[in-house]
């Protein structure tokens, strides 16, 4: 299950959605808006996506998870728009028969989202200064995604 939403994420329903009588482990990850990055204060974050491509990339991540952990149940919801400190920006729930795979698959999904899915955030500080967060690493570069490019 994949969703981009402008509403608060009901993460409880997401973890319920992946539960399965054959599966003994559920791992839920929540990304939440932090008020401090080093010494810099954050008042709000604004998330923006290239929506059709983001959905396509998230779907590819689900496919990759199925290849590595067949039968895993996965739900991914990412929030868009303006979020206050403490709000949930992304929720990923995974269930598998045993715990090692549930941790590994949930972690895999989060790293893949952060590396490849076109969703950006703008940091708004208490003084009203706005700044897009674009880390030094290059996104989706041939160097990191060459395998899927040609």
């Amino acid at each position, binding site marked *: 299950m994949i969703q981009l939403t402008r509403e608060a994420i009901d993460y409880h329903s997401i973890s319920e959605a992946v539960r399965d009588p054959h599966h003994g482990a559920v791992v839920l990850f929540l*990304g939440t808006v932090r008020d401090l990055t080093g010494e810099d204060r954050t008042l709000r974050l604004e*998330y*923006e996506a*290239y929506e*059709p*491509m983001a959905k*396509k990339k998230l779907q590819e991540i689900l496919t990759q998870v199925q290849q590595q952990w067949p039968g895993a149940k996965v739900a991914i919801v990412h929030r868009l728009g303006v979020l206050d400190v403490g709000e949930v920006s992304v929720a990923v729930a995974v269930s598998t028969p045993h715990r090692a795979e549930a941790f*590994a698959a949930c*972690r*895999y999904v989060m*790293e893949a989202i*952060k*590396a*490849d*899915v*076109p*969703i*950006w*955030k*703008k940091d708004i500080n208490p003084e009203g200064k706005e700044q*897009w*967060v*674009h*880390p*030094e*690493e*290059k*996104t*989706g*570069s*041939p160097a990191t*995604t*060459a395998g*899927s*490019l*040609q």
Partner: protein
Amino acid sequence: MTQVLVHLRLFAVFRDTLGADLIPVELPAGSTVADLRQALYCRWPTLRNLLERSAIAINQEYASDNHVLSSGDEAALIPPVSGGQPFSPIP
């Protein structure tokens, strides 16, 4: 036809800085993603560093430099995604 026209979507810092979310770019027929990059470097020299760190997607897929452009392609300039702390290797 000796020209190819692509519509380039802009997001995040590019959209805010350039004040547009879609710009048309005309290039000679047979141009590649590398040629599109060069055209963007010439058009916005002050954004070169960020452009170099950005990916280009063609029809919602990350494209390599040697990808040949077609008229009507949906192109998008993808600045580095939010990332969080530097990625540690997946265990």
